[in-house]
């Protein structure tokens, strides 16, 4: 544990008859960009508000740099928040909004600091404007500047980009990451947008139902999902019911509706019995029946294309398998691959190393519907 890590210990918040955050343990390293990702109602915002001091935990503690801040009033915490929909003071100019925190701490000479901060968020010429005269993206940056100027030990961001349109959101994601790198403050970012979390964060904690389902680097979470929820919420997954036949060294031999598939043991969460066999849609290739036949590939035969959508960089296929399930396949539009039309009979194949294996007792549809929310 270094200088000013943020540590949550068995943090719990119960509202009448409902547990929003359930016995949460979490350490967020100083200077990291940390994302709490989850669908609405998963407890991520409540967690953030407990760190900010806007919500009092039912149980557990919040410590920052070794100091217990659990019962500290919000205005005494070295923590600032970028609120959802910004909560800029409508009666103050951009300049005064940004200067607010400094003035409250008794600083008289704020001009140079405020100007410097407005420069950082590229709003120098808007200092005299009121929030209502700014665009959504500009307001967002004022909110960021207003929080950052106080040099908090931890900056909390509550769905900061939720109100922006897609293009601006992409731009701000890169901007936020740049600013974080520049100032080196710990960012704790709450979002339900998995792309946003993956673009910016060093570490993502996927929350569901008040607990953390899985935590890790974006790539790690994406490649090694620990649960069906994570596999569906972070990107998309094909999950087919299967059984483990046997373990052969560091490989698992699987049976999926009569086909023999192989998965690395390291990517399997369970090693025997009934399982979900998963593969990401972009890892799967389509081939005309019998066209491609690699001994070392995972191969599912007898699919029929039911839907084709062209989305520019890739084409998304839905393929109905012999057992009735529809699997997704994303083919890059490199021009090197054959394209198919609905009704074509195809085989699906992918590298065994891209297969993952999950516990069959979990709901295969967990986390699916929430993807559309963004």
């Amino acid at each position: 544990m270094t200088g000013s890590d943020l540590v949550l210990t068995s943090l719990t918040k119960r509202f009448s008859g409902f547990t929003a955050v359930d016995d949460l343990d979490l350490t967020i390293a100083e200077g990291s960009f940390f994302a709490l990702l989850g669908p609405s109602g998963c407890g991520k915002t409540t967690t953030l508000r407990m760190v900010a001091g806007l919500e009092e935990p039912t149980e557990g503690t919040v410590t920052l740099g070794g100091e217990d801040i659990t019962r500290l009033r919000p205005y005494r915490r070295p923590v600032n928040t970028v609120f959802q929909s910004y909560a800029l003071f409508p009666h103050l100019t951009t300049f005064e909004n940004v200067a607010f925190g400094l003035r409250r701490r008794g600083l008289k000479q704020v001009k140079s600091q405020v100007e410097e901060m407005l420069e950082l968020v590229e709003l120098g010429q808007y200092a005299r404007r009121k929030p209502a005269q700014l665009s959504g993206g500009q307001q967002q940056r004022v909110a960021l500047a207003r929080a950052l100027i106080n040099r908090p030990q931890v900056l909390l961001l509550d769905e900061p980009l939720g109100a922006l349109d897609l293009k601006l959101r992409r731009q701000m994601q890169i901007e936020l990451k740049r600013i974080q790198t520049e100032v080196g403050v710990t960012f704790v970012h709450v979002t339900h947008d998995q792309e946003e979390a993956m673009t910016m964060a060093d570490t993502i904690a996927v929350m569901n139902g008040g607990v953390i389902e899985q935590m890790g680097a974006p790539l790690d979470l994406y490649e090694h999902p620990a649960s069906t929820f994570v596999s569906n919420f972070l990107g998309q997954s094909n999950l087919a019911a299967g059984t483990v036949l046997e373990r052969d060294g560091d490989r698992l031999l699987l049976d999926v509706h009569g086909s023999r598939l192989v998965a690395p043991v390291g990517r399997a969460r369970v090693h025997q019995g009934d399982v979900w066999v998963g593969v990401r849609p972009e890892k799967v290739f389509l081939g005309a029946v019998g066209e491609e036949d690699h001994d070392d590939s995972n191969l599912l035969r007898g699919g029929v294309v039911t839907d084709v959508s062209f989305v520019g960089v890739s084409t998304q296929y839905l393929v109905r398998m012999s057992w009735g399930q529809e699997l997704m396949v994303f083919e890059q539009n490199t021009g090197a691959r054959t394209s198919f039309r609905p009704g074509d009979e195809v085989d699906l194949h992918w590298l065994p190393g891209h297969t993952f294996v999950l516990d069959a007792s979990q709901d295969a549809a967990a986390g699916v519907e929430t993807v559309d929310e963004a």
Partner: protein
Amino acid sequence: MSTAAAHLGPGEQQAPSGDTSQKRGWTGYLLMLPGALWLLVFFVIPTVTLVSTSLYDPSGSILTGYQMTFHWQNYVDAVQGYGPQLWRSFGYAGTATVACVLLGFPLAYAIAFKSGRWKNLMLVLVIAPFFTSFLVRTLSWQLLLGDNGVTVDVLRWLHVLAPDGHLLATPFAVVTGLTYNFLPFMVLPLYASLEKIDHRLIEAGGDLYAGPFTTFRTVTLPLAMPGLVAGTLLTFIPAAGDYINAELLGTPNTRMIGNEIQDLFSGGSYPVAAALSVTLMVTIVSLVFVYVRRSGARDLV
């Protein structure tokens, strides 16, 4: 014309030429007609009549009729003769307004932020007194503040009031009556302003190192300003011209300008009464103008 065309679909853009645009121009004036007529009959004509009455020869009477002589002396007489009552009116109205702010702000704040599911009930309670006549409510204050009333007994027992002290027929009684009668006009606009404040702004204040009091001073109060300005205007203006409270709860020594105007009119001294009314009106309008400018709530003027 160009802005009007911008709102139309592409197919309709050719249509508004000559005839139609002429009709559209008239519609606005037609819609304004009822309001303009109302203003003319109930505002412009009475105001002109009042101002001209104030310049009549004061030696006339209702029976003999009045001569228009541009007798500006009426104003000098009015201000010299009734100066104390004018000052008293503004003094009482100002005190009552301050009392309304002190009582009304916490109440409005409580209704807006702390009442939870009791909010509607509390609002109804604020408005409920209006179901009884203004006169009856003011008369009941005679009972409440009377020498035989409980209030006086208790205050005498507590030695707040001397054994022979009174409440009724004092300036205190008049200001109390004014405060009571105009409190809802302070609470409702304040409530409307406070209720609109996004709770996250108050949280943001706390997040940015402002304690509860500082947050109130720097965030809540400035955002409640429009309500506060509207409330003080709705209280101060009618209170300054009020005569019922002074009549029912006061003495000849607490008479306000409204009482004098009423007496002058009923006594037939139309020109001086009118001059006094115009003076009151002009003074209030100038005060309000300065106040609204100073408070920064310019949208109201």
